[in-house]
């Protein structure tokens, strides 16, 4: 039953991975050939709704579900016990899928003024109240199942990953309740301030701790090295928990509001450099004695790349929250590029690493093609950074044109057209990578060679190697 639960979360996440980024690539055409997307209006649909589809699918469909799948797998392993209440986790998986689907339907329907069925005005928390309630039910079920597992552990001490995953589940719950329910108690500008708290903590207290917990599990086990430093682990975890919750208001730095709470957000954001450096040093120093593994192990490759992207994201983050930079890049695509660096770069790499690691152990089959896995990897390693650069370039040009030269936004549209074309092309490449990855997994279900513990997650090209040996 536990296996069934993990499989459900795991394969559902792949479906949403195929869909979410695809919608993103499609809607980027709006900026290139706006008339070409007029047909969407025939389905009561427009770019602005597609954007909600895109963010919600990626966050709740792909990242949320793949991370929960990984948690359901990792926690019992680290606690030396079976998953408790697997039935609960299994049905929570179905309910979560239902919630994501219902969310899409209600966003599409765009019902006006219904307290239960209308979109909520909070970015990344657009889900109507009805969907929110379903998601809370799922979260409670998952937390109950995971926490029971931790309590039933046979090993007395908890490994770093368990802190992150369990702590992360609880902060996820708090954040979600604030962003979707508490915020309803405020109106006017107060509403915006509580919304800001949610806005960044959706990334900081939901996706980040879960993603880092998964990486803390995968990197040592895939490189067969102990974690570099326990102290850095402690430092990274607690400073993350201390500094992250306050950062949200940097999204609205120049809005009319009490300056001191903005200052607090900026200081928090800059201090985030501490947990980030602690975590990334720990991740990158762990395989130090055994770097050769990176040629061999795909989970290690993806997880390490995830940590590298995480480092870039989080160096960029504190930099852009300072007033001097923020007024310039704010409102431009620079910020969206930053969000993609975190979610597409860092956390999707962690998700892919987790899937490649867990798939053989769950289904008893290796991934069937090294070539295809390599393609996915190089797309994430080469095409994705180009996509990110195109995105950032577009944001910078917008910033220069409007903030420095004083052009209006209509005059700027033609100036960024080429950058946006580049972004769309590279983005389509990244989407292709995800589709290939989905194909790789599904095909491996059918023709993947048998897997036994100790074998590589991705099948070695046995025939080719044997032939080479013969010719030599």
């Amino acid at each position, binding site marked *: 039953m536990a296996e069934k639960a993990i499989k459900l979360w795991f394969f559902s996440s792949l479906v949403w991975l195929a869909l979410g980024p695809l919608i993103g690539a499609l809607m980027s055409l*709006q900026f290139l050939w*706006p008339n070409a997307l007029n047909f*969407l*209006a*025939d*389905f009561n649909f*427009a*770019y*602005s*709704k597609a*954007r*909600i589809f895109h963010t919600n699918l990626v966050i709740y469909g792909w990242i949320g579900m793949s991370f929960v799948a990984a948690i359901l797998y990792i926690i019992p392993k680290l606690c030396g016990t079976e998953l408790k209440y697997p039935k609960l986790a299994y049905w929570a998986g179905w309910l979560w899928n239902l919630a994501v689907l219902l969310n899409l339907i209600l966003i599409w329907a*765009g019902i*006006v*003024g219904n307290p239960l069925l209308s*979109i909520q*005005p909070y970015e990344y928390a657009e889900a109507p109240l009805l969907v929110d309630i379903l998601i809370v039910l799922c979260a409670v079920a998952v937390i109950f199942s995971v926490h029971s597992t931790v309590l039933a552990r046979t090993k007395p001490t908890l490994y770093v990953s368990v802190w992150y995953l369990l702590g992360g589940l*609880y*902060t996820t719950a*708090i*954040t979600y309740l*604030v962003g979707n329910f508490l915020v309803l108690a*405020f*109106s*006017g*500008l*107060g*509403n*915006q*301030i*509580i*919304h800001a708290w949610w806005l960044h903590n959706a990334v900081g207290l939901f996706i980040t701790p879960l993603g880092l917990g998964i990486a803390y599990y995968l990197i040592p086990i895939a490189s067969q090295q102990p974690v570099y430093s*326990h*102290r850095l682990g*402690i430092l990274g975890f*607690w*400073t993350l*928990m*201390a500094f992250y*919750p*306050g950062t949200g208001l940097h999204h609205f730095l120049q*809005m*009319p*509001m*009490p300056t*001191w*709470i903005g*200052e*607090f957000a900026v200081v928090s954001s800059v201090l985030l450099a501490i947990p980030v450096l602690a975590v990334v040093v720990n991740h990158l120093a762990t395989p130090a004695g055994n770097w050769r593994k990176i040629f061999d192990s795909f989970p290690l490759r993806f997880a390490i790349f995830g940590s590298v992207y995480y480092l870039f994201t989080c160096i960029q983050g504190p930099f852009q929250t300072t007033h001097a930079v923020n*007024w310039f890049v*704010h*409102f431009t695509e620079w910020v*969206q590029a930053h969000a993609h660096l975190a979610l597409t770069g860092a956390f999707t790499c962690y998700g892919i690493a987790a899937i490649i690691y867990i798939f053989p152990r769950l289904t008893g089959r290796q991934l069937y093609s090294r070539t295809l896995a390599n393609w996915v990897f190089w797309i994430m390693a080469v095409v994705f950074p180009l996509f990110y650069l195109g995105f950032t370039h577009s944001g910078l040009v917008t910033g220069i044109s409007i*903030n420095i*030269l*004083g052009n*209006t*936004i*209509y*005059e700027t549209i033609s100036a960024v057209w080429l950058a946006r074309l580049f972004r769309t092309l590279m983005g389509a490449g990244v989407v292709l990578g995800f589709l290939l990855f989905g194909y790789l997994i599904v095909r491996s279900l059918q023709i993947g060679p048998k897997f036994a513990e100790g074998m590589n997650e991705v099948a070695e090209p046995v025939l080719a190697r044997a032939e080479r040996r013969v010719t030599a």
Partner: protein
Amino acid sequence: MQHQHQPWQAPSEASGVYWVLVVLVGAGLLAFMLWALYGKMRPRRWTTAGYHALGALVIIMTLFTLVLYIIPANQAQQIPPTARAWDWKPGETIKDPGGSGLEGEPYRGYLVYLANGCTYCHTLYLRPEDLKTGWAEGAKPDEVSQMGDFVHFPFTMLGTQRDGPDLSIIGRKIPDMKYHIDHLVDPRKFKPKSVMPTYRYLSERDLRDLAAFLVSLGNEPQKLRAGVTPTPPPAEDPRIAKGRELYRSAGCVACHSVDGSPNVGPTWKGLFEHEVEVVLPDGTETKVLADEAYLRESIEQPAAKIVKGFQNVMPSYAGRFTDEELQALIEYIKSLR
């Protein structure tokens, strides 16, 4: 920079509780970091009770920061509203100030704005920084947003992204529901370079309410309830009526106001037979009298004489109007004294 600060806005005036908390947490974190880096580690003492305490600490830390946000959120709710603060109740309607006779519900329009995700490309606040940039075309310095402007909103969608212009004063700049509806249905009819999607799928009621909401932005609710533009005199030249219609349908309204307020282009109010400071294509500045010939030239060849202080973004309308229509438009401008 006319940004008005509330007295407690400055960090030094935050509440005493806030500072006590900040000092406590700061000192605690510093001590913790020193311990984590240099202190003695005794792993065996990590008992179950210890883990529970740490787990509780995670939750407390998160909630503590949340409280730090709740304090200003509460304070922000108690700010007195400004005179121009958006204040429309459910069910209340406004009449189109553009004179088309349409009526719409601004409050419901705000919900339509929400349901269709307008906030992902448009913001509803002007920063002081924006005045020096191209973000705030036609904005007056005192139109920079203040805290009191948002008091009556049931929820706020200030927005984090600008793929299109800021809308916080759109109603003051273009007080015309019919124009907004036409623009929502086909944005590129008026702004050829616009990348905005078409919202032709909205129901007529949704469009009307959304347009009413747009018109309500940047106008004082009291004035809008009373009607911002005076009703035209009953016995007017039919050409003027035709010109007024063209002003809207040809999109002039998007850039030129008729009540003297600033926008992308110069206002038409009091334009006729007044001296205008213009810049010629070669850069020389001169003054011309705004007579019929000047108006005609400005419509057909906007680049020939650009009014000082404005950028030349206007497309040429040569060939777009018949002679009769052009004359009607000029008559309309003449009537705006």
